[in-house]
C-alpha cells in the first residue's frame, strides 16, 4: 500500500502537478493567445480531423473484422485474430516508417496508388492511414466479447417473425452493438489524438496542414518556447480527460445493455 502510494506520487502525481502549476502560472490572456494562434488551430484541425476519419474507418473495418472472426470459420482465422493486436505490439516508430515506405511513390502500395492520385505518404491522408493502423485493435477487441455473448435466440426470434437477415442485422443486432461500437470509436479517437510516433514519419510535418498538435509541442520545445508547449499540452490534456469521461459513460451504458 505504501509502495503503491509512493510510486504513484513520484511517477504520476508530481509530474502531472508540475505541468498544471506551470500552466496556472500563465495568465488567461497569454494562455488563450498561445493555445489558439493560427498555427495551433491548423494543428488541432489536422489532429482532430484525421483522428475522426481514422476512428470512423476503424469502426467500419473493425466491426467487419470482429464479425467475421466471431461468426465464421475459415482458414487463417486464428492467425488473423492474433494479428489484430499487431499494431499494439509494433513500436509506433516502426509502424510509421514502414507505412510511409509502403505508400511512397516507389513503395509496394504507392506504386499502384500514386498513379491513381492516391498519395499516402507526406499528406493528410497519410496521417489518417497511420492513425487508422494504430487504432485498429480497439474496435475489434471491444466488439469481440460482445458478439460472442450475443444471444442467438433473439436473432432466431427475429427470423421466425419473418425478418430477413439484413433486417435482423439492422434492427436487432446493430442496436445491441451500438454502445460498444461507440466505445471502440472513442478509444480509437482518444488514442489517435495523442499519437506521435507513427505520424511524424508519414506526415509532411509542414506548418499549416502537415503538423499534428503533439508535433507542434515538439517544435515549441525545440525552440525553447516552454510556455507555448505547455499551453498546447494543456489543451490536449483537457480533451483527453473529456474523452476519458465519455468512454467511462459509454462503458457503463454498454454494460447495462448486456445484462
Amino acid at each position, binding site marked *: *500500500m505504501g*509502495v*503503491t502510494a509512493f*510510486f*504513484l506520487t513520484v*511517477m*504520476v502525481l508530481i*509530474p502531472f502537478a*508540475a*505541468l498544471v502549476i506551470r500552466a496556472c502560472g500563465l495568465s488567461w490572456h497569454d494562455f488563450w493567445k498561445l493555445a489558439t494562434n493560427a498555427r495551433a488551430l491548423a494543428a488541432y484541425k489536422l489532429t482532430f480531423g484525421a483522428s475522426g476519419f481514422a476512428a470512423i474507418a476503424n469502426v467500419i*473495418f473493425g466491426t*467487419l*473484422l470482429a464479425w467475421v472472426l466471431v461468426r*465464421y470459420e*475459415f482458414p*487463417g482465422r486464428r492467425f488473423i485474430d*492474433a*494479428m*489484430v*493486436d*499487431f*499494431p499494439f*505490439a*509494433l*513500436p*509506433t*516508430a*516502426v509502424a510509421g*516508417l*514502414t*507505412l510511409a*515506405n*509502403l505508400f511512397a511513390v516507389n513503395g509496394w502500395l504507392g506504386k499502384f496508388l500514386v498513379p491513381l492520385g492516391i498519395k499516402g505518404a507526406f499528406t493528410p491522408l497519410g496521417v489518417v492511414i497511420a492513425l*487508422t*493502423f494504430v487504432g*485498429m485493435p480497439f474496435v475489434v*477487441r471491444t466488439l469481440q*466479447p460482445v458478439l*460472442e455473448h450475443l444471444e442467438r435466440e433473439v*436473432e*432466431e426470434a427475429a*427470423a421466425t417473425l419473418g425478418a430477413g*437477415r439484413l433486417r435482423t442485422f439492422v434492427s436487432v443486432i446493430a442496436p445491441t452493438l451500438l454502445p460498444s461500437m461507440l466505445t471502440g470509436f472513442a478509444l480509437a479517437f482518444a488514442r489517435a489524438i*495523442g*499519437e*506521435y*510516433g507513427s505520424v*511524424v*514519419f508519414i506526415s509532411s510535418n509542414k506548418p499549416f496542414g502537415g503538423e499534428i498538435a*503533439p508535433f507542434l*509541442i*515538439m517544435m515549441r520545445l525545440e525552440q*525553447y518556447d*516552454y510556455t507555448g*508547449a*505547455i499551453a498546447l499540452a494543456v489543451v*490536449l*490534456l483537457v480533451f*483527453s480527460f473529456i*474523452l476519458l469521461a465519455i468512454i467511462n459513460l459509454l462503458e457503463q451504458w454498454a454494460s447495462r445493455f448486456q445484462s
Partner: protein
Amino acid sequence: MAGYAKKKINGDSHRQSRRGTEESAVVKWVLITIALVFSLVFLLLPLVNVFAQALSQGWRAYFGALSEPDSWAAIRLTLIVAAICVPLNVVFGVCAAWAIAKFNFRGKSLLITLIDLPFSVSPVVAGLMFVVLFGMNGFWGPWLYDHPLHLFGREIEIKIIFAVPGIVLATTFVTFPFVARELIPIMQATGTEQEQAALTLGASGWKTFWHVTLPSVKWGLIYGIVLCNARAMGEFGAVSVVSGHIIGRTETMPLRVEGLYQGGSVATTAAAFAVASLLALLAMITLGLKTFLEWKQAREFAKAQMAPPTRTPESAGLSGATGSF
C-alpha cells in the same frame, strides 16, 4: 392447411432456425474476403515490408548497419532502459493490484483512475511533464545544476533531461499501468478465501503472498511483463521529448530509426529498416508470447472448471480467450 403448416414447422424447424441466423454463403464469403484482404494489406504487408526493406541492400549491409557503433549503442541503451523500467513497474504493479483487489478503502476508484492516467495522456505531453520538472527552465533543473554530486573527489552533475535518467523516467511513466492492469481483474476474481485459509493455518503475510497469491496470478503477471517490456522498448514520443537525440549516447532504438530515416539516402533508409526489423521481431515475439499465454490461461481456467467433484468436460471449452492490451 393448418396441419400441413404444423408438420412443416416440426420437420424443418432446425434447418429453418439455422438459416434464419446465418447469412447466405455469398454474403459470408464476401465478408470473409474483405476481412482477409484488409488484414493482409493493412496488418501483414507493413510487417513484411520492414524485413524486405531491411534486407534490400543485402545481408552484409544489414549486419553492417546493426553492428555500427551508434546503432549498437542504441540497442544497448534500449535494453538498459527496459531492464530498469520493467522491474520497477512489476514491483509497483503487484503492490497496486494487491492493494486494490484484496483490501477495501476509500478512494479506490480514484486510485484506479490514477493508475490508468498514463494511458490517456499523449506520450509527448508525458515527456513534457518531465521536462517541466527537471529541465533547465523547470522546477528542479536549476537546483540540480547548482548542486552537483561529490563522489570520489569529483564533481558529477546530475543530468536528467537529455540524459539516460530522463529516458528511464519517461519510459516508466508510459508503461506504468500495464502490469497493474493485467493483475487487478485476476486478483479480484481469485478472491481472498485462499489467503485467509493460509493465514489461518499459520502462514506469515509474506509466506502467504509468495506461496498463495503470486502463484495464482503467475500467467497474468508474465502477460503484463511481456506487454510492459514491448512498450518500454518501443516507446518513441515520450522518450523523444526528453532524450535530446545525442547520437551514440541518448538514442534508443526507435529514436535511432528516426535519425537514420532522416538521413534520406538509400543506405541510411535501409539501415533505419535494419534497426526497425529488430523492433518488429520484438513485436512478433510479443504477439507469439501473448497468444501462448492466453491459451495457457484459458487451459488453466478450463482445468479449474473440470476439477472434481463436478466433472463436466463439455463446459471446459477454449472460449473467451481474447484479452486486450
